[in-house]
């Protein structure tokens, strides 16, 4: 009892009024209890949900939108993909098709994409923190491996996490991947793909072991100082070398070069008195379709031509004439891996072409280059530099081993945490900004860096950044069923004597056969089913182009009769579609009525003249190949099957599939087979078909 009294006294001593503390305590309790509902009420997502309701209130579609609206936190949970996304809590209009006019975030409608949000969530494509329910937390935080939100500009990178093959709707990503291969980025930086393969380079850097046969030390010096000073389209980057370093590397490369027998050739001087047409060299350059692969500056100052081989604007300043002659005679002697075909030029043609190309000079380039003979110390220093800069990652150099993984591996660069990056003062501290700045100005990140300076356009930098951002941790851990791998090239090579000939002509630098080869020229896998033997033989003798609007064309190789026969026989035998019997329909002998019916279908129902020409005087269609001689070029069965379904014979061809009836296809085939070309054209197709059937047997 005394103890209780004492307690009461001390209590009174403390608070005087015994009721007041209860009042204070209950107010404090109330405040504490109110914190949670208040936090909830004033949370950001609540604010945005109210904003959404205000936005839709007075719209015509308000009733529908309000019915779709559910208050509270929304979540997409996909355990397979590691996705917990609450983005739809604030982004309320994503799936509302009628909100197309709203551009205000976070209420805009999601643009149409081929995937459903319920299937993939948001973070898969946009990154950011899916579980967060605040703007800053979801968009800017770099806490989880997904990092902050990916700028919309690089959205295509996200497609690339699963789609490793090119997609029609992602041109930027496709270009970025192409550039990684074309500019040899992957020669220094390994990029392993989730399917276990590595990205392969698509450039052809020349070997440097015999470079003294080809060019001078002065040219190498000028080139090393700045490749663009020699050729505007040079693909080799600028290593930003000092004068002395360029001097020493050029000294080393020349001293290290060993002459290779056959790398140089001198032609007998032309007979005295025989006048040579000064334009003959240029004509031969044109006739040989060198411009399919090589660019050259024309009189107007534009660089015109393909980019498969090097630009030739100032080739005369670069290469020695005796090397050029030997190279044109047989390029494989100098560089076994070159895509340049072995033209069978005659000595006279060689002289003409060498003369023409040697006249293409840039006298300013070497005007101020004066190099003293290199000292052994300089040569040794040059070799050290060559090793330091990783030159052998791209070029074969005698005595210098190809470095393994010269640059850092980039297989998962797209997920690199910002904390691991070193930024330059003043730049935005994000991964996309780091990558694009690194590509634009590789050396500004610190001293001692070796990555060379490329000269990409802003679009190319964006494309490369997009391609690198697609290489994420996520792309490796995704379920295998979601991965769409790159189409792998086969290692098909044609066999036998014809195979050797085709390797020598380098047919597969441009043509693809059975899944291997280039994509510049038509796929030849089924060429034997498609064309007539006589036509093929004549075409190889003189490849007149089928499509006059194309810049890139098949060059003329001076094949011997035996070589041509060998090649023709091989193509006609080996390259057939197993499902096509090319002799199932006759080459000629169709009834005039059928031909006439085909003509009506051609010009009427199917309006083929919009794209094709049969009568050059009347038709103007310029998209598909002219069909004036198609009856002497293609097999009837091929035409018939082509008309029935063009994409089945050549996937991706733009000729539409007309779902043609068998009768229509047969009549059109008859009409087309009547187009035998040349002499018979003048007399009209009706008589042409008759005369053709008269002169040629059906069993041909």
């Amino acid at each position, binding site marked *: 009892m005394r103890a209780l009294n004492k307690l009461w006294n001390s209590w009174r001593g403390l608070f005087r009024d015994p009721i007041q503390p209860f009042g204070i305590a209950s*107010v404090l309790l*109330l*405040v504490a209890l*109110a*914190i949670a*509902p*208040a*936090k909830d*009420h*004033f949370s*950001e997502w609540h604010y945005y949900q109210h904003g959404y309701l205000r936005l839709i209130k007075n719209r*015509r*579609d308000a009733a*529908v939108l309000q019915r779709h609206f559910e208050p509270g936190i929304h979540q997409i949970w996909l355990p397979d993909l590691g996705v917990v996304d609450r983005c739809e809590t604030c982004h309320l209009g994503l799936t509302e098709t*009628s909100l*197309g006019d709203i*551009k*205000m*975030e976070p209420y*805009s*409608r999601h*643009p*149409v*994409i*081929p995937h459903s949000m319920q299937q993939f969530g948001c973070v898969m494509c946009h990154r950011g923190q899916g579980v967060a329910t605040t703007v*800053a937390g979801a968009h800017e935080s770099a806490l989880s491996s997904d990092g902050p939100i990916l*700028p*919309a*500009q690089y*959205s*295509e990178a996200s497609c690339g996490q699963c789609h490793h093959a090119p997609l*029609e*709707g*992602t*041109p*930027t990503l496709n270009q970025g991947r192409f550039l990684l291969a074309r500019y040899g980025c992957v020669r220094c930086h390994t990029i392993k793909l989730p399917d276990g393969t590595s990205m392969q380079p698509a450039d052809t850097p020349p070997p440097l072991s015999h470079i003294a046969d080809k060019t001078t030390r002065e040219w190498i010096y000028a080139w090393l100082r700045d490749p663009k000073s020699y050729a505007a389209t040079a693909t080799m980057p600028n290593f930003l070398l000092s004068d002395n370093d360029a001097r020493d590397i050029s000294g080393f490369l020349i001293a290290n070069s060993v002459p290779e027998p056959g790398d140089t050739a001198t032609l007998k001087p032309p007979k005295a008195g025989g006048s040579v047409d000064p334009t003959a060299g240029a004509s031969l350059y044109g006739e040989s379709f060198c411009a399919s692969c090589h660019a050259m500056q024309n009189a107007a100052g534009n660089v015109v031509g393909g980019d498969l081989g090097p630009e030739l604007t100032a080739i005369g300043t670069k290469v020695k004439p005796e090397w050029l002659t030997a190279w044109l005679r047989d390029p494989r002697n100098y560089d076994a891996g070159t895509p340049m075909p072995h033209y069978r030029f005659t000595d006279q043609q060689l002289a003409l072409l060498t003369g023409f190309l040697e006249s293409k000079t840039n006298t300013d380039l070497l005007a101020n280059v004066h190099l003293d003979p290199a000292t052994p110390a300089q040569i040794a220093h040059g070799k050290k530099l060559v090793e330091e800069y990783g030159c052998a990652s791209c070029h074969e150099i005698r005595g210098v081993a190809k470095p393994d993984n010269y640059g850092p591996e980039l297989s998962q660069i797209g997920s690199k945490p910002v904390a691991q990056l070193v930024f330059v003062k003043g730049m935005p501290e994000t991964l996309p900004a780091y990558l694009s700045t690194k590509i634009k100005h590789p050396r500004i990140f610190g001293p001692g860096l070796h990555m060379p300076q490329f000269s990409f356009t*802003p*679009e190319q930098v*964006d494309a490369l950044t997009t391609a690198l951002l697609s290489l994420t941790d996520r792309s490796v851990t995704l379920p295998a069923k979601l991965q769409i791998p790159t189409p792998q090239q086969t290692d098909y090579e044609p066999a036998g004597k014809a195979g050797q000939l085709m390797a020598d002509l380098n047919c597969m630098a441009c043509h693809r056969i059975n899944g291997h080869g280039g994509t510049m020229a038509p796929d030849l896998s089924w060429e034997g089913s498609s064309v007539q033997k006589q036509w093929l033989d004549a075409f190889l003798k003189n490849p007149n182009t089928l499509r006059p*609007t194309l*810049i890139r064309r098949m060059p003329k190789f001076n094949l011997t009769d035996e070589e041509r026969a060998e090649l023709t026989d091989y193509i006609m035998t080996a390259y057939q579609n197993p499902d096509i019997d090319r002799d199932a329909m006759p080459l000629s002998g169709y009834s005039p009525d059928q031909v006439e019916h085909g003509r009506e279908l051609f010009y*009427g*129902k*199917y*309006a083929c*003249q*919009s*794209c094709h020409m049969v009568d050059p005087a009347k038709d*103007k*269609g*310029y*998209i598909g190949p002219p069909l004036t001689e198609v009856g002497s070029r293609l097999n009837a069965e091929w035409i018939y099957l082509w008309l029935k379904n*063009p*994409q089945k014979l050549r996937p991706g061809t*733009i*000729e*539409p*599939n*007309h*779902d043609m009836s068998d009768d229509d296809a047969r009549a059109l085939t008859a009409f087309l087979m009547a187009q035998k070309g040349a002499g018979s054209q003048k007399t009209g197709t009706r008589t042409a078909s008759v005369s053709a059937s008269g002169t040629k047997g059906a069993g041909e």
Partner: protein
Amino acid sequence: MKRRAWFRSSLVVGTLAVVAVCGCSRVHKKAPVLHATAAGSALVVSSGDRQLAPSGSPLPQPLIMQVNDNQGNGVTGALVKFSVPAGVKIDPAEALSDSNGEVTANVTLGNTSGRYVLTAMAWNKAGHPISVQVPELAAGYQEELGYQVQRKYCSRCHDPESTPEQVSNHDNLAVPPHSFDQGATYNKLSDADLTAIIGHGGPALNLSALMPPYGSTLTKADIQAVIAYIRLVSDPPYQAPGLVYAKQ
């Protein structure tokens, strides 16, 4: 008592939260104020309007506006201000015209696809504003796909411009096709009409048979994408019909 405490506490906490959010996230940077030294009488787009770029990305070419006097010559030192819709970034947002009377600005499109209409403003000598509307086009995935598909299958005939890489077939056709930006033609056709023409050829709507059917060549998604592209580039702009609701 209880309810008042509730309101007061939530009010206090709420105000604090609002102050904190506003104070932390919005730091205004004042740009230096520009003073015009001259004024023109006309404002025109020199180049860079109606560009198509993927949404969220910078336009390939800058937007160049020109301030002219009444003889059509450029005026130097006139103030041009841009106002842009939500999501679009422009740099600089205001500038004085250079010696050609031109103001050059780099534009980054918003993250949603569609048409963004920027407004450029200048002031004449009397101080009255002259404004010009500059539309720019942002392609989302679907419009981008449509652009690629039409470039492969359609533009050789539908685009009258020839380049050395791609010679136009437009003028070779007896009935020349309509260029895709001709809104006057395309806006009259519904999505279903366009789907029918692309899928079944011109004769499906009694149009030229020179337009072949692509229904068995292109996928449904491809055709929808081409239509989305046509809708995006059409000039005058396409107005979607919207939903039709029953009268209450």
